[in-house]
């Protein structure tokens, strides 16, 4: 028994350690930003979408909660940062913090709606919440600028690094730092007792409850946290593009981020980042070739992905990751 306990502990400790492959993954992004400064805006978009996808992966991959309304918190975070900046409080870090808090607070309030009903109910309730918030933003044009959106300028990050159109590279680096900090936090969280109990809830909610896990509280907790992550992603987007518009709440935002997580594979945290990179690059290439019809190819990709079985695709992605990032894949297998 004690030998078993020791083995489990050793296993958990091993999972905690950062492998060279993971470090290489993050260093590669830094190198990429400096190597191709002309595409810094695209890289920035990938990083922000990656953070957004990470937020969905927290609830979908870790806790098994489906959502088609993650854009609600994305939009709230973006508008929080934009409204603050527009009112003169344009320090980026402060904006991020408020975006996270506001997103998280709305997540906390709406989370209890997800505890009842089937997956279909959850998909529709989350979608409904996003639509309601979008309509709220639309109606309160005095605050949000309505259909015109909000434009504003940001102060340099920490008073040193200007971001925005003149500082695309700085913007990408800023997003990368924020993404890395939040990713490390999520990674730590997934290995914590809280994260392990979420896995238990995902696998079998009834049994997890019988084991004494407060399933409702765990689910509300992780949903609020994911909402805060999405809030930060939205705030980052608003700050680095210096605009916030109503389409942030759109249904297609929630669907896109779902697609990113599905492409990369849910549940091992890197999936959202990889999916975001694939999705954004694909979108960039296709919409460069056929600007009006790129949706068609995204739709076709979805259909093919589902028909071939997304588990199979995800395991393929994981196998690719395993050759590139041995440790992350092993974590996925263990999680």
């Amino acid at each position, binding site marked *: 028994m004690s030998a078993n306990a020791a083995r489990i502990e050793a296993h958990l400790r091993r999972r905690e350690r950062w492998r060279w492959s993971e470090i290489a993954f993050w260093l590669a992004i830094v190198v990429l930003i400096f190597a191709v400064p002309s595409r810094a805006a695209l890289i920035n978009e990938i990083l922000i979408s990656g953070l957004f996808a990470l937020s969905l992966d927290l609830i979908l991959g870790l806790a098994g909660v489906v959502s088609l309304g993650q854009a609600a918190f994305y939009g709230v975070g973006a508008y929080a940062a934009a409204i603050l900046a527009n009112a003169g409080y344009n320090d980026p870090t402060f904006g991020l913090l408020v975006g996270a808090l506001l997103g998280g607070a709305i997540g906390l309030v709406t989370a209890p709606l997800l505890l009842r009903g089937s997956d279909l109910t959850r998909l529709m309730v989350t*979608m409904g919440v996003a639509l309601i918030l979008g309509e709220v933003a639309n109606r309160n044009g005095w605050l949000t600028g309505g259909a015109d959106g909000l434009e504003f300028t940001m102060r340099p990050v920490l008073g040193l690094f200007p971001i925005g159109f003149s500082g695309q590279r700085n913007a990408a680096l800023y997003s990368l730092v924020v993404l890395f900090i939040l990713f490390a936090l999520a990674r730590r969280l997934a290995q914590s007792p809280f994260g392990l109990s979420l896995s238990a809830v995902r696998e079998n909610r009834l049994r997890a409850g019988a084991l004494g896990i407060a399933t409702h509280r765990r689910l509300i907790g992780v949903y609020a946290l994911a909402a805060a992550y999405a809030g930060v992603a939205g705030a980052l987007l608003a700050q680095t593009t210096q605009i916030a518009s109503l389409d942030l709440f759109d249904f*297609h935002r929630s669907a896109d981020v779902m697609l990113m997580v599905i492409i990369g594979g849910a549940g091992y945290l890197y999936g959202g980042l990889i999916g975001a990179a694939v999705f954004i690059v694909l979108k960039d290439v296709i919409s460069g070739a056929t600007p009006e019809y790129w949706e068609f190819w995204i739709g076709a990709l979805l259909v093919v992905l589902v028909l071939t079985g997304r588990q199979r695709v995800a395991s393929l992605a994981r196998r690719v990751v395993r050759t590139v990032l041995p440790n992350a894949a092993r974590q996925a297998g263990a999680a």
Partner: protein
Amino acid sequence: MLTVLFDGVAYGMLLFVLACGLSVTLGLMNFINLAHGAFAMLGGYVTALLMNRAGVPFLGTLPAAFLVPAVVGVALERTLYRRLYGASPLDQVLFTIGLVLMAMPIANYLLGDQPQQIHLPAWLQGRIDVHGVGIGVYRLFLIVVCGAIAVGLQSFLVGTRFGARLRAAVDDPRVASGLGIDVDRLFAATFAVGSGLAGLGGALAADVVGGIDPAFPLKFMVTFLIVVAIGGSSGIIGALVGALLLGVLDVAGKYYVPSIGAFIIYFVMVATLILRPQGLFAKGDGR
């Protein structure tokens, strides 16, 4: 007051024809078909094109607006949809969103992004005055046609052998197939009728929503889902009451309290899903 109620009922009737197919497929196969609106769009386009390019009169186009989506629907059902029965809701949602994303650019590619207008014949335009209540002739037409469809569907479901089989299969597909009912074929037929009705609804709705454009499936997807959420997925009556409730609330809300009018349907949906996750008119716990 009565005019608003009348418009609301007409809108609700329209929603019923558009959404009842969705409600039946959801109840029968537990299948979430977010691409339902694409069939409605197809029906609307059929009517618009036949009228504008071939000069067919409005009423003459309606059978085609039913048949074309029904045929396309059954073809898609046999080739693609059936692979996903029993898949997780997430897979079904992703798949049907994929179909919507494909349908919209196809429509855009073939017909452009401008709305295709439908010009109603003169006898369907204008208003009549009944005891001081202004009634739009087309609204009245909608209520009569959609009401007839609702009555027809209900008596078909209650009165025929096919209807009895369908109700049995909705109640419990496994037991139904154990009793020798070919649930698979039943579903294909139901899917065809549901898609056809969506197409007919799309044709009838074209005038009310200001023309059919490629964004139609996405714009109305949420509305269909709300109808199903309120009515539950158990049958025609639930969908009818849900659609009427939604239609009246939506029109009345936008008329009397325009500042919050657009929220009302969402609030109704979220409230319904919280209080009765299986819909207001579901039997017992549902499934």
